[in-house]
């Protein structure tokens, strides 16, 4: 088993997990309320356990939220290192980003369809009933009424289609609405790639924002709930997909990256402005495939000469990490490149060290996690291999059940999907453009 995603929980223990439960069943009772955890139907066959694709820890460190590739959001309670699943909710589209708001009450979820939803961290019965959860609403068959009329469609084919629809007697509405409390906050008409909840201090007030990135080069700044319908601005300038965005600490700096050979360093607040285009050093560019930024992380580190926000960047299938300090973010510092033996998959900050999970297929079994100690010497950032801390050793020693392992190819699609966001600009749309030009469906007005 290869940890794809990990976080630092309370204390100094790292948790790695995959396939927390079978998709349907094995729900454990929540001892606090005495009621069973929510059951949500999933389409997957029970034989195949779902894989964890996203993981987030609540700011209060009590809850862990995991997204599995069957589009489900699992909420766990963490107590002395033991996780108990409290709820499982199936989203309409595959979530691509997840975060718990600083007040520990709300999960924000961005999905592949471009929408951002908010869900209560701990669902309440009342909220879910209000959202349409009750069991006894039978699916009523409604009389089908086409919205087109003979006045609105004119071509022969469309008229025929309308006539056929009129013949159709009944119409069962497809189950569509989510059966648990949720709110649609905002949406892009594009594939969403990342989403962050960010705060900034304005005078004495603290304002919350939702920052979203999409495949069509946009970074959008919206107000946080309850005013998420207001767009405050865009960070525009990327010419390829944006795959990752990251607020630097709690500052007004935002680092973005994707398919462009540079990172955007933005002042995202109060007026979105590009501060620096940081050209990626060649060492961080992949050799055999197009460039794709697969991770940007930020953490506050005590480098020995004071606290500083450090940003870490990974490119897909590149055995290195790029580290940026304040000098690189705010002035024209070069940052540093750290070579790794394997592809980095995820990164977490642990005090003044970096924890890195790597693709351990590329090395000996006990190398799936490693740690780098960060320091500064003569105002130059340094990263040195950290002698295995205990938590690291524990996780590296852990062996998973090979039965549950995925085939190489499956793992590749799970771990290295970012590059597929790149648009293929040459062959696209030929069909859409030419298809109907002289076809039967051509415009009929004159």
């Amino acid at each position: 088993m290869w940890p794809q995603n990990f976080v630092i929980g309370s204390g100094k223990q790292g948790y790695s997990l995959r396939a927390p439960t079978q998709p349907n069943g094995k729900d454990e009772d929540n001892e606090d309320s005495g009621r069973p955890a929510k059951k949500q139907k999933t389409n997957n066959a029970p034989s195949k356990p779902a894989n964890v694709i996203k993981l987030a820890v609540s700011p209060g460190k009590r809850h862990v939220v995991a997204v599995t590739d069957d589009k489900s959001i699992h909420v766990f309670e963490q107590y002395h290192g033991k996780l108990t699943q409290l709820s499982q909710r199936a989203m309409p589209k595959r979530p691509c980003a997840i975060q718990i708001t600083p007040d520990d009450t709300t999960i924000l979820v961005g999905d592949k369809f471009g929408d951002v939803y908010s869900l209560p961290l701990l669902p309440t019965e009342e909220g879910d009933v209000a959202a349409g959860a009750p069991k006894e609403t039978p699916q009523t068959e409604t009389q089908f009424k086409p919205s087109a009329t003979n006045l609105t469609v004119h071509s022969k084919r469309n008229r025929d289609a309308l006539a056929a629809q009129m013949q159709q007697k009944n119409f069962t509405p497809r189950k569509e609405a989510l059966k648990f409390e949720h709110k649609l906050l905002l949406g892009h008409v594009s594939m969403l790639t990342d989403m962050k909840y960010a705060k900034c201090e304005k005078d004495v007030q603290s304002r919350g924002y939702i920052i979203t990135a999409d495949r069509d080069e946009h970074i959008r700044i919206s107000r946080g709930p309850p005013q998420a319908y207001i767009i405050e601005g865009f960070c525009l300038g990327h010419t390829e997909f944006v795959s990752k965005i990251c607020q630097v600490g709690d500052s007004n700096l935002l680092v973005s990256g994707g398919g462009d050979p540079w990172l955007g360093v933005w002042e995202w607040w109060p007026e979105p402005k590009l501060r620096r285009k940081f050209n990626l050093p060649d060492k961080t560019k992949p050799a055999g495939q197009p460039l794709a930024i697969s991770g940007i992380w930020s953490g506050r580190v005590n480098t020995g000469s004071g606290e500083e926000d450090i940003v870490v960047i990974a490119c897909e299938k590149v055995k290195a990490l790029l580290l940026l300090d304040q000098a690189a973010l705010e002035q024209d510092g070069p940052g540093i490149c750290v070579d790794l033996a394997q592809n980095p998959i995820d990164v977490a900050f642990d005090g003044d060290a970096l924890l890195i999970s790597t693709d351990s297929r590329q090395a000996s079994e006990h190398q799936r996690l490693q740690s780098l100690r960060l320091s500064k010497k003569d105002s130059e950032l340094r990263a040195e291999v950290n002698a295995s801390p205990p938590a690291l050793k524990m996780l590296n020693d852990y062996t998973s059940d090979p039965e549950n392992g995925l085939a190489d190819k499956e793992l590749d699609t799970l771990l290295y999907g970012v590059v597929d966001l790149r648009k293929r600009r040459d062959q696209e749309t030929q069909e859409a453009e030419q298809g109907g030009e002289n076809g039967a469906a051509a415009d009929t007005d004159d």
Partner: protein
Amino acid sequence: MAGPPKKRQRREDKQEGELPQKKYYRQRAHANPFSDHDLTYPSSPSEMDWSKHYPSFIATSDESTTTTETSHPKTTKQVTIADIGCGFGGLLFALAPRFPQDLILGLEIRTSVTEFVQDKIAALRKQAQLTSTTDSTPTLTNEGDATAPPSYQNISCLRANTMKFLPNFFPRSSLRKIFLCFPDPHFKARKHKARIVSTTLNSEYAYVLRPGGKIYTITDVEDLHNWMVEHLAAHESFERVGEEEVEGDVCVEVMRKETEEGKKVERNGGRKFVAVFRRLEDPPWPGEKEG
């Protein structure tokens, strides 16, 4: 592919200033707004070169601030009226003389249809130039004054997928009117996200519209009308404009009578549903006072 090139050739078989013919520019009425297409769009509004679209509004060197790093020439005005899904441009040509002080832009996703509108604008500008050299020179007149012959210098058209790229063209609060005339109804429930009006997309319209600006919708599909009204009304940045104000609005009349689809619906005896919404001021942040 014998069809298109022939058509394309025919398009060019005309005198300078002669109006293009629609039959050489036909294109399938639907486009998928989710697909990537091969679109050209600026990475941000400041990258957009409007001087090619509105050449008679190019700022002279002392008018433009040359300190900015953008290389293209500046225009003296910015676009304030957008016709989203302008089709064959009927509304644009009708608005041009009525709002001579505004730069008006038609946006259309279909290539051939966009080319038709561009060719027609070029032809009309040429015609206006020819007549103006023989007659006295017309000057730009006040809003709504249609006595002077239109120069069509204030309208233009470009190909765009506005559902994805509206903020690439227009800065915040830059528009005062947005038109959504006879949009694709996308009858199937599965396709409703492809509709031009949705709660989430309305936030982008609110972003580019200035407070007090208006969004105009018209359709012959009652179901779509109800959908657009429902979704715009549900958005907290918009309020519906009262009937009296709507009926007194010259834009509504133009939208009903001068759009190509409006004329077509008229011929077929269909009904037309109109709704106008006003962009409200953004409320103060939660817990903060105004100002």
